[in-house]
């Protein structure tokens, strides 16, 4: 799931500083699950912004709407009516949602309330961790099911580097050394010998490339 967190409210307010009425668009997908942009957070942000602007003597009207998912264009049109008479839309979705809104409402000021952080999951109530580097070329079968691309702070494919100590990464005692985890797991699985193979450089073209990555499924595309 995509993990996102809300920006500082002052920064959000500044983005819509000159607006009299805004739509806050929540998302029922990942950001609901990671407790940052669902219906509840949307209402909270709306109330906080109203209060803030009232305080500053520039009252702001808000409307709220929580889409099933903002990352699907089909879920956007139900907002049409609401968008019509607002000066701006604040999206509480990840960056994907913001862009779908901007795409549909060409002449509206669409701003993000969120910082889209990573692909990961909860590690407890109120804590989340990045788990996948979205590299487009998964290596988990070679690394004991632990992602070195994102969980190793140097994305080393032939780790661990010399900074690994007591199972922790050199960058912080709070961060597990991914390669220690990989080593432990491969050892437990009796597959340590696989780690002696020199892993070739990664094909990063499948990860972050010049343009947006695309998947085209010929079997599914109509016509």
């Amino acid at each position, binding site marked *: 799931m995509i993990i996102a967190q809300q920006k500082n409210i002052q920064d959000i307010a500044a983005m819509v500083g000159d607006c009299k009425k805004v739509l806050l668009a929540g998302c029922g997908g990942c950001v609901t699950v990671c407790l940052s942009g669902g219906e509840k957070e949307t209402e909270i942000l709306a109330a906080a912004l109203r209060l803030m602007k009232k305080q500053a003597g520039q009252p702001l009207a808000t409307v709220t709407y929580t889409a099933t998912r903002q990352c699907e264009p089909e879920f956007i049109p139900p907002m049409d009516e609401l968008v019509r008479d607002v000066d701006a839309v604040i999206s509480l979705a990840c960056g994907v949602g913001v862009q779908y809104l901007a795409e549909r409402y060409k002449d509206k000021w669409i701003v993000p309330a969120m910082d889209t952080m990573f692909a990961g999951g909860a590690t407890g109530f109120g804590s989340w961790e990045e788990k996948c580097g979205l590299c487009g070329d998964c290596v988990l079968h070679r690394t004991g099911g632990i992602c070195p691309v994102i969980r190793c702070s140097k994305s080393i494919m032939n780790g661990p580097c010399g900074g690994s100590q007591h199972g922790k990464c050199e960058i912080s005692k709070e961060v597990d050394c991914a390669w220690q985890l990989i*080593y432990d797991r491969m050892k437990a699985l009796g597959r340590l010998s696989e780690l002696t193979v020199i892993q070739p450089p990664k094909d990063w073209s499948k990860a972050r490339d010049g343009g947006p990555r695309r998947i085209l499924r010929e079997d599914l595309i109509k016509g």
Partner: protein
Amino acid sequence: MKYLSKLQKMLDSGHFAVTAEIGPPKHAGAHSIRHHAQLLKNHVDATNITDSQTAIVRLSSIASGVHILDCGIEPIVQMTVRDRNRIAIQADLLGAYSLGMRNLLCLSGDHQQFGNHPTSKNVFDIDSMQLIYLMSRMRDEKKFFCGEEIKEYEPRFFIGAVANPFADPFEYRVDRLEKKIEAGAQFIQTQCIFDMERFERFMEMVRARGLDQRAHILAGVTPLKSWRAAKYIQTGVSGMIVPDSLVERLKNAADPKKEGIKVCIEQIKHIRENIKGIHGVHVMAIAWEEVVPEIVEKAGLYPRPQVEFNPEEND
């Protein structure tokens, strides 16, 4: 027999090599580099030049190498994979070779969060293992990293790597060393040794696998200026082990600096006399380059054997 560098020739001829480290400055002036090179000139066989060590921006290692070469010492260019993608690395190393550098040390590099640009974006396009492999392939098979042929003037570096016997998991450290040798590392410089006992255990395993026969291993030593420095390394630097006894010894010393130098000399002697499979020492006198000659002399490694090497002789 053609040698890739003077250092290689020295090692291959069975001499106990001495290398040191010069940290480039945080500015564009070369005088400190040149000063240190002059200072070390007669006491070491080659000097490493760090590549923006601890991720603090410094004068580039290759440019520093030019100055050092000019002063008459053979540089060992350090190249980290932190700041450059594979295109930049190759470009820089082609340049380095063209400028007369012959020794290359491949490393991951300290994470940028420790440096003075913690908000920068790291690269880590390839890792140090891959760099070792790709650079040796470049030399031996005349190929760019992508596999494309290099028609002529391929760089022919004497390639080194680092090993840290003090990082975890301990047992895996020897595997990883072997992997580096497998990838093409011809010489190895170790992390600073303070925990001699652990280092000896490491070397035992190294010898058991015959790795000391396949690459020249240079033991890393560092003179400590004070017990505080020792304590800092002990607690604040990941992947280093400093025994409490050493901290205590410095603490109790009347003149800690002298004591630090003394310890370092003892370590070198011990390594040279008692640990088999070590072909040299690498003295990392961090921001204390001036003590290196004294250490080398008192460790009985002076004068240095004279080995003739002409960089052009291979081209």
